[in-house]
């Protein structure tokens, strides 16, 4: 297999939050606690997880919005968290970002055309060049020319999400980071966006990292799936195999939530112990004393973070 386009090694990151109450000070909340992932060119990695699992933090760390405390983020072999400004700008052109909520990602007081063209601004292209490239991406996303002169508040959520995708691909990136691109949309618009994403990938040979809480959305366009719980990847492997035969108990619950129908707790504490040890059906004595190991199964094709699969 070729070398990964994006390689994440033992990534740790935290947020600082106020202590609250009348106390003064801050404490660290670890959002990522040692994430390892490989994304190969031309494939889609789907990242699934519940709220607070760190899936959005992962995207933010790759984008540089969240500084890694430990670990490396390698893009084409370069650690992108430790680049100088000039080199970073080169990398930035190759990583596009489609955020979660279209109404917050497009400035409501700016014309759509200006929003789409924004990434081109630092390049100092000629006016005709910019116009031409805007035209190309707008056509790709089925956006009418007249939309370009409108303001964001005149468009619906689905249209705005297309604009956000147009902006993300205008620099012809290799990697597209998609953070819940459809979670704010209706079913019919969600289908439109997912179809567009699938077509674009073929057309432009893109690589996707798609984050979502909805495993069905992820399964629609992913080649590999990573399941995150409380800042860690608990299972990672080929999409088809994970969907058919989940190994980690949390993955099984994600795939079959109506089977649980009760509230289960995810330990979001600072320890490295398994976050689902309190109710896991496969739990062993070791689970509450030692952090679970990453076990490779299926010819190294699949990773599970669970004591149960150590032999």
């Amino acid at each position, binding site marked *: 297999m070729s070398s990964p386009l994006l390689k994440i090694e033992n990534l740790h990151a935290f947020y600082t939050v106020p202590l609250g109450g009348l106390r003064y000070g801050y404490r660290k909340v670890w959002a990522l606690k040692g994430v390892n992932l490989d994304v190969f060119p031309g494939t889609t990695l789907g990242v699934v997880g519940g709220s607070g699992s760190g899936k959005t933090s992962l995207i933010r760390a790759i984008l540089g919005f969240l500084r890694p405390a430990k670990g490396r983020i390698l893009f084409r072999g370069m650690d992108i968290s430790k680049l100088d400004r000039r080199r970073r700008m080169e990398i930035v052109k190759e990583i596009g970002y489609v955020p979660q909520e279209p109404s917050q990602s497009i400035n409501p007081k700016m014309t759509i055309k200006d929003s789409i063209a924004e990434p081109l601004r630092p390049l100092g292209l000629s006016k005709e060049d910019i116009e031409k490239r805007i035209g190309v991406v707008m056509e790709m996303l089925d956006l009418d020319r007249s939309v370009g002169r409108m303001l964001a508040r005149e468009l619906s959520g689905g249209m705005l999400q297309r604009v956000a995708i147009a902006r993300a691909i205008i620099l012809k990136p290799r990697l597209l980071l998609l953070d819940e691109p459809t979670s704010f949309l*209706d*079913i*019919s618009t969600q289908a439109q966006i997912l*179809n567009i994403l699938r077509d674009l990938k073929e057309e432009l040979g893109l690589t996707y990292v798609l984050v979502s809480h909805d495993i*069905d959305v992820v*399964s629609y366009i992913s080649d590999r799936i990573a399941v995150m719980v409380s800042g860690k990847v608990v299972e990672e492997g080929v999409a088809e195999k994970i969907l058919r035969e989940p190994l980690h108990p949390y993955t099984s619950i994600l795939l079959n939530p*109506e089977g*649980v129908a009760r509230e289960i707790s995810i330990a979001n504490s600072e320890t490295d112990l398994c976050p689902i040890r309190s109710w896991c059906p496969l739990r062993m004595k070791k689970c509450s004393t030692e952090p679970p190991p990453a076990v490779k199964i299926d010819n190294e094709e699949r990773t599970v973070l669970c004591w149960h699969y150590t032999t």
Partner: protein
Amino acid sequence: MALVLVVRSEELGIGYEHDEGVAWVVEDLDLEVEHGVVTCLIGESGCGKSTIGNAISGLLPPYARTYGRLVVADRVVIDGDKMNFTGVRGKVVVRIAQDPASALNPYLTIGEQLSTAIRTHFPGLSEHDVRSKALELLSDVMLGEDVYDRYPHQLSGGMKRRAAIALALAPEPEVIVADEPTSALDAYLKYAVASLLKKLQREWELTLVFITHDVSIARYICDQVVVVYAGRIVEEGASPRCLESPSHPYLELLLKALPKRFSKDRLADIPGMPPRPGMYPTGCKFHPRCPYVFERCRQEEPPIIKAGDRLVRCWRYYEQSLT
């Protein structure tokens, strides 16, 4: 058991007054909800499902305009342009919002809040009875007695949600309107909330009106399915079966637009967007997006037609119903 209608609307219309006039969100709605069933109102955002829910629970804003009739538990709450929810709102019908925990007062213990609600609705109960009733409510939502003396911030998110549901049940209502109670939750929590509501509905013999856009949750919880599009019912069935074999083109496309786990087939593209209130097209409200459209659809709005085990608002079933 005799068929008892708890909610019945006759040609109900609801609109909101704004600067340029009234935007009619719901038009000519004939909805019947039997006692003791779970009815799901399914639809996309802006289709008017929340407005219907607010009308049933008596929470329409003062600038809402109405026509037709709405009867809830034998009391006419909407008659023409007059609304009167006294004695119904918060007593016979309660509403559970998307974030029910926001109904809790952070400065009072759960017990104080529950007993205040019980005392308000059942004056004359002794203090001992109030307390035992509150504890009963807590156990109904699967919370321990220790929760009685705790403040909301001492509870986890899920416990708060259940405490708030207990609070909503304090007046012993007949109807619960749950407006998207699962939409912002993780997958397994959705089913936890839905199954708790279902359990309460069964034990208390309640009527539950469950408003959602999530087809899988609807399939899990409902007895009766009502699909709403552009402020009217387009398909209604007495069982979740119509979510498996849809009749109306809208529902058919909607189900095909949902990603399926093991299929990578292209999702159905429903062209265009749902119409905005006040800008509904003429004829069938779905005709601009419908793949089966023919001339009649553009001119005349189809009536609701009985087709097999369900009601459908589509001209395609008209011929069939005549024979």
